[in-house]
């Protein structure tokens, strides 16, 4: 067994997307020894895929906007399964986090009077998303990356973390993993650890997520003894590309609809008017004339149904396709070509224009796009304290997609970039506090490190066995067919059964080639994470016998008020088996509840 060299830090951040870098910046600004570990190169994290914008009630375009309205939109969009305190902090603090990015060099699109421009997005009452064309995520990530570089933060690139390490008192004290380039082991000793590893979408066949989204943080936290909540709440983005097959699932930004694009069936009908749910009827236009007028005048018109929250739109598209009114490749049409001049489309949506032109040969200024739902975002995740982003394990913090609570059962577009700034900063600050208050040097157990590494390296030594690629393909089928956008009890039971069998087979994984930059082996080490989080999703989905937000049960099509007041908490029990308990949501204080009940301005 090769020995893992140990790097010493005060704060270790795992994940170099927006949340991880924002957390690291906060800790480094406090003067703590801060390191960031990431599976890819710096600047490649999934944050770059965020296109539309960052939601913040700056009130630059509509002075009527305020944190109260943002709070309300977030809670209602989340079908009230949200952690109210997170939603409050998020709505109050996101404007400052956006302005801070400007002070670090970001260049947002401007209003006529030189302030940050804001665009419309689904579920937001006012134009609220600060943006840079349709590449806002890149701007955000580059800005925090450059700030991190300016602060001299140490970045450990292309490093996979296999396990968190705890001291005898059960405090998280570091992590062990390997360098992807060489396959050599490495360990970190830290007084506090922030998880910011993003999502889990790689378990599904059609997904907007990159190879990195294998649920690393969720599984690391679970194995370290932390609670996770509402893992069944998975968002399927309504508009992914459906053709060509090789790009199926690739994200088409909601900004297309925010900027006037509309959904149509195969006959050109704007079908979203048929799917306006009661909860949003009072604030949604019921005629094309009113919907179109809204783009110019948000105060006297109601918003188009094309901009309902994502769960509603995704389900509607699914239903249209099922009813045989879809496009040739099994999607529906997203049309902006007939609604705006080509120059406007190219200016507002340059990367969408390029993406369709280069990958599908479709000119979106002339033709409609074919789109359909694609696996996108996990609302559930590690259970955290709203103010400190602390998990239920001492020394372990979580921010961004890996943490649960803020978005409830459905996330509004634009709320994830603001999420990762607001809670990235809070996690970094709280981790810094914890590290400063922790006496002595954390103790690591070399035997534990060795055991983790031995398990990870086992597939390299096996002569013959299961192919990690084949196992992943089977996992994709299970999750796509049985734990997709529409779920049923019997199918979820079947999924759990199949996931258990796949998990058993990981014991026989065998890879060819050496340890240096070997994607087959890397996948073999990701599979236990993917299977663990997939099991959490299916388990939660079976237990939540209702339909709410991103979680839709065909056999329980309505929301159940009782389940809607509960978090489904999953953790490892005493004997290492998964345990699920129902716990009441934190109660919304009176003053904030009043904001939710109000249905019109």
């Amino acid at each position, binding site marked *: 067994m090769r020995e893992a*060299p140990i790097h010493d830090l005060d704060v270790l951040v795992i994940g170099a997307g927006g949340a991880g870098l924002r957390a690291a910046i906060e800790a480094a600004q406090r003067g703590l020894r801060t390191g960031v570990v990431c599976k*890819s*190169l*710096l*600047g*490649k*994290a*999934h944050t*770059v*895929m965020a296109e539309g914008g960052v939601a913040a009630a700056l009130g630059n375009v509509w002075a009527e906007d305020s944190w109260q309205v943002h709070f309300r939109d977030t809670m209602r969009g989340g079908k009230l399964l949200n952690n109210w305190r997170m939603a409050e902090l998020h709505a109050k603090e996101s404007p*400052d986090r956006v*302005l801070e990015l*400007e*002070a670090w*060099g970001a*260049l947002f699109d*401007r209003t006529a*009077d*030189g*302030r940050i421009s804001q665009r419309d997005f689904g579920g937001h009452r006012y134009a609220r998303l600060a943006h840079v*064309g349709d*590449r806002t995520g*890149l*701007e955000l990530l*580059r800005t925090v990356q*450059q*700030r991190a*570089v*300016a602060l*001299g*933060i*140490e970045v*450990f690139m*292309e490093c996979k973390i296999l396990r968190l390490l705890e001291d005898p008192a059960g405090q998280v004290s570091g992590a062990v993993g390997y*360098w*992807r*380039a060489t396959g*050599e082991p490495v360990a970190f000793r830290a007084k506090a650890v922030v998880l910011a590893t993003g999502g889990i979408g790689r378990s599904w066949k059609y997904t907007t997520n*990159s*190879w*990195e989204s294998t649920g690393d943080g969720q599984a690391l936290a679970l194995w370290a003894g932390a609670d996770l909540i509402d893992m069944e709440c998975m968002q399927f983005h309504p508009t992914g590309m459906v*053709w060509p*097959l*090789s*790009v199926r699932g690739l994200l088409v930004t909601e900004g297309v609809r925010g900027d006037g694009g509309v959904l149509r069936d195969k006959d050109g009908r704007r079908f979203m008017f048929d799917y306006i749910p009661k909860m949003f009827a009072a604030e949604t236009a019921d005629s094309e004339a009113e919907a179109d007028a809204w783009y110019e005048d948000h105060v006297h018109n109601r918003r188009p149904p094309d901009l309902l929250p994502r769960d509603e739109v995704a389900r509607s598209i699914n239903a249209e396709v099922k009813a045989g009114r879809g496009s040739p490749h099994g999607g529906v049409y997203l049309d902006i070509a007939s609604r705006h001049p080509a120059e406007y489309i190219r200016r507002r949506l340059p*990367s969408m224009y*390029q*993406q369709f032109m*280069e*990958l599908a040969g479709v000119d979106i200024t002339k033709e409609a796009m074919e789109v359909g739902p694609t696996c996108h975002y996990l609302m559930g995740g590690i259970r955290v304290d709203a103010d400190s982003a602390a998990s239920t394990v001492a020394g372990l913090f979580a921010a961004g997609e890996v943490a649960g609570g803020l978005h409830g059962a459905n996330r509004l577009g634009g709320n994830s970039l603001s999420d990762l700034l607001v809670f990235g900063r809070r996690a970094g600050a709280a981790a810094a506090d914890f590290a400063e208050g922790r006496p002595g040097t954390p103790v690591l157990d070399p035997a534990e490190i060795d055991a983790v590494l031995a398990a990870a390296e086992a597939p390299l030594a096996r002569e013959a066995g299961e*192919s990690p*690629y*084949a196992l992943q393909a089977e996992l994709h089928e299970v999750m796509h067919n049985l734990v997709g956008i529409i779920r049923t009890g019997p199918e979820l039971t079947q999924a759990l059964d199949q996931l258990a069998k796949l998990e058993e087979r990981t014991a026989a994984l065998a890879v*060819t080639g050496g340890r*240096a*930059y*070997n*994607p*087959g*082996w890397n996948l073999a080490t990701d599979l236990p994470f993917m299977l663990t989080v997939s099991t959490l999703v299916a388990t939660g989905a079976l237990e939540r016998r209702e339909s709410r937000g991103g979680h839709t049960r065909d056999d329980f099509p309505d929301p159940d008020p009782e389940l809607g007041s509960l978090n489904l908490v999953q953790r490892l029990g005493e004997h290492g088996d998964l345990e699920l308990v129902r716990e009441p949501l934190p109660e919304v204080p009176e003053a904030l509840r009043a904001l939710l009940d109000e249905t019109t301005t």
Partner: protein
Amino acid sequence: MTAEVTMRVWRGEPAGGAFVDYAVPAVDGEVVLDVVHRLQAGPAPDLACRWNCKAGKCGSCSAEVNGTPCLLCMTRMDELPRAEPVVVAPMRTFPIIRDLVTDVSFNYEMARRLPPFAPRPPEANGAYRMASIDVARGQEYRRCIECFLCQDVCHVLRDHEEHKADYGGPRLFLRAMELESHPLDTADRRALVRDQLGLGLCNITKCCTEVCPEHITITDNAIIPLKERVVDAAYDPVAWLGRRIRRRTRRPDPSPLPAADDRSPDKPASGVAGRQ
């Protein structure tokens, strides 16, 4: 339906390697990266290749296809000649880690050499005002996805290993110009760019602009204006006329490439970004 394509992929390590042919069925609508993924799931499970977004947005999958530096995820198979093998090779300018993966840490180290953004103080309410017209150019620079294809193609780096110590390359010049022209920035990086980052070595061949997948006009909109700013403080104007040498990028030589020499044993070169 049974049409096949031959993929000629460079396989190897810092010590050396060779092109290996793989015959695979042709599939409609695929990009080169799709085929690489099919090779991984089939005959070449350990074929090393970086990727993340598969949409031309992250700049991970840079390589050279039929001799042209490009993003594997944005290079469509149906636009390549079918009769010939499709040659997929790693970027030639950077040391090999394995197969299609190169050690691009040079670019990260260079990025740390530029003094960071230093804004003027904001208005009383904590915000800044900037006009659309003043941010437009900077936004073009900031479209950069750091694929480093421009660095790969630039002959100063590609053909002159010795310049890696004193030449930032087009990506860094773009970043320098971005900072220099930022409406809020107050720092002056001109002397540094001229004296330590080798701006004068660029002779405006425009090869970088030609390969940029983000279609950033690196030379005309960044390097030339940067040279103009720097020229104030004595600059050789001969380079202005610049020999515009049309360089066809060549397939990387499968013989050993210079290996990274600064790797510490426990931190592979791709994973280093030292503290400053």
